[in-house]
């Protein structure tokens, strides 16, 4: 296996690309009780239109298939549900779907290999019937309704809709009750066979493992499958402009929630790590705990918590999100825009920059405290073509000039939107 040692966090990554195309990563943590395994496919809610390897015509599937598939994977031909089987072995199993990947996982302290039998078996053996697909529609319908009551989720989705014209990132990961009504077992098998090919997947383990040993155990449990070729994903050209600047929804909340979104240009593969680091630094300088903007709004009694600050990106989209509760969302938005304008004229403050950079460095070190965080981080970064260690390596080279440039490129007033739920 290839080994990569990081001297800053003093951890080693062992990685191997198997003959069938599957990437296996192991980050050993000696003496840690918990073992964590996560198996992901580069297939998320945005992958609705694609060309199956070996075919020429693109196909389009209903919104919500990736998430639907995730639900259905647990059901086995022998009538058992793998989630129940894993629970009965004494491990804690789960799965999730994001915009760009779907992942299956479990964690445990004992019975790791017994659980591995079941785990690798169910991910490699889908079992869809007309009947069990129909049944699932009711269950997922319930989940969709549940999200309808979450103001936090609504403010997020509305913000994406205000930013994106056509890109499927704006759609709910679950799809809607209408779109999932069109899903059938043929569609599920088609998507499974396309995206659940080992060459489109990555398996990460973290815990007290011997890398070569766990690699053997994984290989033993893999069924024979040929690598398929490249999956061509098709996205309609997304125009640079936003759809509309402001969107508002009324729900039963005591205090309005707002999300400020900024539509950005997707970073090139080489720029990704540095851009992410620079944007995290900028966001904390503008709106973090020690920022003047936060202090001012807090003292006015407008907001009473540090906003959540994030930068999300994949191959062909990128945006910044700032979310908080506020008595007067419009005022928060206007003051934020004024701050951006001020920085545009004067640049970012050097002293603040140095301090926040130290903080961000610490944040990345903290990620290595827990096997769950480590494994999930390596998987989701892998899906973006990034080795997680790169953040710790590249942060040194992130200087004030670069950060000012990233600011100019990404914090553009005409790309900002305000989503409010009140």
């Amino acid at each position, binding site marked *: 296996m290839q080994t990569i040692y990081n001297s*800053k*966090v*003093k951890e080693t990554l062992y990685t191997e690309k198997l003959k069938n195309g599957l990437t296996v990563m192991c980050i050993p*943590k000696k*003496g*840690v009780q918990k073992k964590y395994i996560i198996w992901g496919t580069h297939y998320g809610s945005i992958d609705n239109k694609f060309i199956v390897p070996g075919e020429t015509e693109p196909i389009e599937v209903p919104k919500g298939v990736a998430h639907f598939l995730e639900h259905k994977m647990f059901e086995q031909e022998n009538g058992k549900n793998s*989630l*129940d089987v894993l*629970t009965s072995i004494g491990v804690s199993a789960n799965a999730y779907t994001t915009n760009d990947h779907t992942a299956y996982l479990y964690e445990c302290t004992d019975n790791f290999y017994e659980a591995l039998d079941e785990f690798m078996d169910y991910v490699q053996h889908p079992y869809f019937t007309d009947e069990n697909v129909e049944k699932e529609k009711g*269950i997922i319908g*319930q*989940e969709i*309704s*549940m999200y*309808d*009551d979450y*103001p936090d989720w609504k403010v997020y989705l509305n913000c994406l809709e205000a930013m994106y014209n056509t890109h499927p990132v704006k759609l709910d990961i679950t799809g809607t009750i209408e779109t999932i009504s069109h899903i059938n077992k043929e569609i599920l098998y088609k998507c499974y066979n396309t995206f659940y090919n080992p060459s489109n997947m990555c398996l990460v383990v973290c815990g007290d493992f011997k890398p070569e040993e766990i690699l053997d155990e994984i290989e033993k449990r893999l069924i024979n499958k040929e690598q398929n070729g490249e999956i061509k994903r098709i996205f309609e050209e997304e125009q640079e402009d936003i759809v509309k600047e402001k969107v508002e929804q009324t729900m*039963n*909340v*005591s*205090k309005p929630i707002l999300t400020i979104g900024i539509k950005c240009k997707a970073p090139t593969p080489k720029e990704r790590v540095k851009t992410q680091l620079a944007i995290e630094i900028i966001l904390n300088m503008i709106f*973090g*705990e*020690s920022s003047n903007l936060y*202090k001012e709004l*807090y*003292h006015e*009694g407008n907001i*009473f918590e540090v906003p959540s600050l994030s930068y999300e990106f994949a191959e062909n989209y990128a945006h910044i999100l700032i979310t908080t*509760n506020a008595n007067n969302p419009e005022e928060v938005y206007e003051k934020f825009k004024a701050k951006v304008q001020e920085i545009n004229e004067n640049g970012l403050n050097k002293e603040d920059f140095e*301090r*926040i950079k*130290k*903080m*961000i*460095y*610490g*944040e990345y*070190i*903290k990620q*290595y*405290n827990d096997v769950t965080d480590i494994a999930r981080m390596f998987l989701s970064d892998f899906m973006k073509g990034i080795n997680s260690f790169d953040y710790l390596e590249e942060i040194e080279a992130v200087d004030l000039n670069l950060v000012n440039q990233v600011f100019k490129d990404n914090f553009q007033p005409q790309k900002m939107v305000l989503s409010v739920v009140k």
Partner: protein
Amino acid sequence: MEYKKQEIKKGITVHNLNTDKFKTNLIAIFLTTPLSREYVTFDAVVSAILRRGSKTMQTQEEISKTLEEMYGASFDSGLNKTGDNHILKFYLESINDEFLPQNANNMFKMSIEKLTDIVFNPYLEDGKFKEEYVEQEKENIRQKINSKVDNKAQYARTRCIEEMYKDMPAGLYRFGYVEDLDKINSQNLYDYYKKLLSECKIDIFVSGKINKEDCVKIIEEDENISKLEPRDAKYVVNDIEVKEEVEERTIEEKMDVVQGKVVIGCDILFNEEDLKDKNLKYQAMMYNNLLRRKCKFKTISKCQRKSKFSIYRKFKLCSL
């Protein structure tokens, strides 16, 4: 991992978990005091006001800047009910020196200093808390109390507990009550804080790559800790008690939601025989897991979460 504890002064205990599994050291200070209707709201405001500034870091901004400079040491505070006690919790987590770019000055010692400064050495004006801060924090807590309806599932759980333990300390809302906020001012809040500090049980937890001896030494030498007096700590030892069976009750509140939220609270009835069984707590936890594990979605899982909750409550009552 090795756990050791030492009472450094009467009523003040240092707990040390010596482990090299983490990149960070975590320090937690817990102040434990009996829950009461009279002071529950005071506790909430005290917990919030201490975050606003200390003698050496006079504003929240200074606290934040100090923490950022310490490679993003994170400070957090919390307020929890455990049985009939209210616990004010303060945490500071910082990177172990080993993982810092250049060997920065003893980060652990600095973290102890900063955390004890926040908890035991607050910023005062004219011998009391700063009025402006008190009024702002009262307002924030007012909003927090009012916003308990926002998360409907959480609200249903809170209401269930209130009804199950009506007129009992365990039924109190941890952030207190809006009508009591008006009675709080910077003077009586500071008086309460001093009383709390002199009477509460103090526990200091340290987890990280540091042994008990070094840990105790640094804490004992800390300026703010050395000023604390020994105390006969006042707190409630929660015993399991025999309970009478009560009649089932249904409380219904109407709101504009897509999906209704149902919470079933089940208090566990113990008889004299049960009380002899030391494993009772674990049996309750097992049963709770059996109920909540079985299935993922649909109505049943909600009921299961509930049972988790009420048993958890019971578990909490047993836990001190």
